[in-house]
């Protein structure tokens, strides 16, 4: 029994990490149908900038805030310098541009920072919390809390604010959005900045658990992308639940089956789900009006 609870705690911890990364994909996807493969690099930047600012003597909250703002700036720059000039290109080309950007950011981080691994101190200490024989670290609760907070924020943004609806409108039909007076350029800038900021926030929260180095972004983005696909691309609820589900799948496989097949089982389940529900669990079926 305590083993099962331990597997659930592990799955929730890892799942919350995936969910935070997956949530970052949502905004850009909603605004432009582009899957931003540089999202993992924003997570890495969040962690790295915070580590180096903190080492330079800055208090942790200030260092984290600076990292989030800097990454948001990076997101805006990515949009202005690489995505916007190629706006008339098909979505696939834009996605490939983001892959190129991720390689560039990774290389730059290696030169600006270093190639070593780094860790941030846990926000609330390292004393594990014991519940019925199983343990969970306080930092895991921070990550889960962060994932839920970002989810609620995004949900309110898309359903309650005019700007959020303008983002959805831009994705749906850029010309129609312009006709009703939406500044689509500003919406694109906003969505890249916000996505990068969410990624960086994820980086700050997960670094005490996963550690950070210039090249952690690829693996994080891959798992986050898988979580987002499983839940339904573009849907914040899908990103959150997809992440948790993926984490639980991995920990249950490692716990009850074999750790060798952990990743394989997770991806087989994702494939199976996507065969039956190509839009993901919470994804909407596209409706074309003729």
């Amino acid at each position, binding site marked *: 029994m305590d083993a099962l609870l331990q597997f659930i705690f*592990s799955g929730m911890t890892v799942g919350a990490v995936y969910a935070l990364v997956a949530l970052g994909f949502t905004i850009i996807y909603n605004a432009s149908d582009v899957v931003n493969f540089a999202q993992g690099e924003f997570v890495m930047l969040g962690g790295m900038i915070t580590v180096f600012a903190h080492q330079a003597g800055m208090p942790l909250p200030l260092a984290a805030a600076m990292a989030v703002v800097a990454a948001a700036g990076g997101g805006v720059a990515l949009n202005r310098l690489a995505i916007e000039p190629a706006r008339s290109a098909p979505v696939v080309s834009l996605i490939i541009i983001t892959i190129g950007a991720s390689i560039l950011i990774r290389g730059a981080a290696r030169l600006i920072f270093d190639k070593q*691994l780094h860790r941030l101190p846990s926000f609330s200490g390292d004393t594990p919390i014991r519940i019925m024989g199983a343990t969970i670290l306080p930092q895991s609760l921070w990550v889960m809390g962060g994932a839920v907070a970002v989810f609620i924020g995004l949900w309110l943004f898309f359903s309650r604010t005019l700007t959020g609806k303008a983002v959805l409108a831009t994705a749906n039909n850029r010309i129609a959005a312009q006709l009703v007076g939406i500044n689509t350029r500003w919406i694109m800038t906003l969505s890249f900045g916000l996505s990068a900021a969410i990624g960086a926030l994820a980086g700050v929260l997960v670094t005490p658990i996963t550690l950070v180095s210039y090249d952690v972004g690829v693996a994080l983005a891959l798992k986050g992308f898988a979580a987002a696909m499983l839940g339904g691309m573009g849907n914040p609820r899908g990103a959150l639940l997809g992440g948790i589900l993926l984490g639980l799948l991995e920990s249950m496989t*490692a716990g009850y089956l074999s750790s060798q097949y952990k990743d394989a089982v997770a991806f087989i389940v994702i494939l199976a789900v996507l065969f039956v529900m190509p839009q993901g669990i919470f994804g909407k079926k596209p409706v074309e009006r003729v």
Partner: protein
Amino acid sequence: MKTTTRTAFAVLLGMGALSGAAQAEIRLGASVSATGPAAFLGDPEAKTIEMMVEEINAGGGIDGEEIVLTLYDDGGDPNKARTFATRLIEDDEVVAIIGGSTTGTTISILDMAEDEGIPFISLAGAISIVDPVREYVFKTPHTDRMACEKIFTDMKAQDITKIGMISGTDGFGASMQAECKEVAGDQGIEILADETYGPQDADMTPQLTRIRDTEGVQAVLNPGFGQGPAIVTRNYAQLGFEIPMYQSHGVASNAFIELTGKDAAEGIRLPGTALLIGDLLAEDDPQYKVVTEYTAAYQAKYNEEPSTFAGYAHDAVALLADAIARAGSTEPDAIRDALEETSGFVGTTGTYSFTPEDHLGLDLSAFRMLEIADGGWKQLD
């Protein structure tokens, strides 16, 4: 016009080569993985090789002859390593090669060196590099199998015979996992649980819970490299294990204690080289001088601590310089013969004595069993 330029260029090149030969110099070649996935090995190795060649030349070279170093970065790619080995031998006309940060790149260089009769000192771990012995191939790092044997010897000294293993699926972890499983039987160690994790995984508590729930496990061994072992150790403390934990030489560095946190790392045992505990060595320790001098020079030049892997490169250059001096010649065959006669040569990794049957030249005494205590290292034997 184009042809004339080319001819002129060729003549210039030819003159350059001639004047070079006239000055009498020792052409040393190296191909290491300074970038790419094996950069953690190759980067400090490249830095060490460059630093040591500069040092030797500043001190007047070997018998008054300067070393001319040609260093290539193969990026961990065996195909590139093969190309560079060919280039080193045919174009750069080197008399000896150092390199092969990984076993894969070493295997590529090894065939070339063996066929062309150029002495080659590898910096990679696998035992297959020197077993069976190849005439021109030597290596400086101890093998993963020796690390397993050292750990198992320490376990038996504490009456531990039943263990659980949790290994990374990265190259280092997978190789050591296989070696440990192979020698466990001979050493009288029984592996009751055998778990793995991906090198980028964020939480290993499920695997550790399985090991904890396996009846009879007396200790846990974690072969791995990078962030994995740090996360495993943190999870280990989180789950409140009361049995000892062993790590491998892959994480023998101060960075590991930093990443893991002082409290979680307390009591961890691992095999390491003298290089790691330079400031703990007694002044009459045979390795004291070489370790402290090398560490000081490396730190002064690069402002970071030399890793165990950097030490492998140090020993390779030092062994070659020693062999060339003794051979009194820059003929590859003379260097090879002198290298094989090396006896009791003290390096940072251990004391090397090559024989025609043994081109590794280290024994288990090269490893020192260490324990982490109060955020630092403590030597056990």
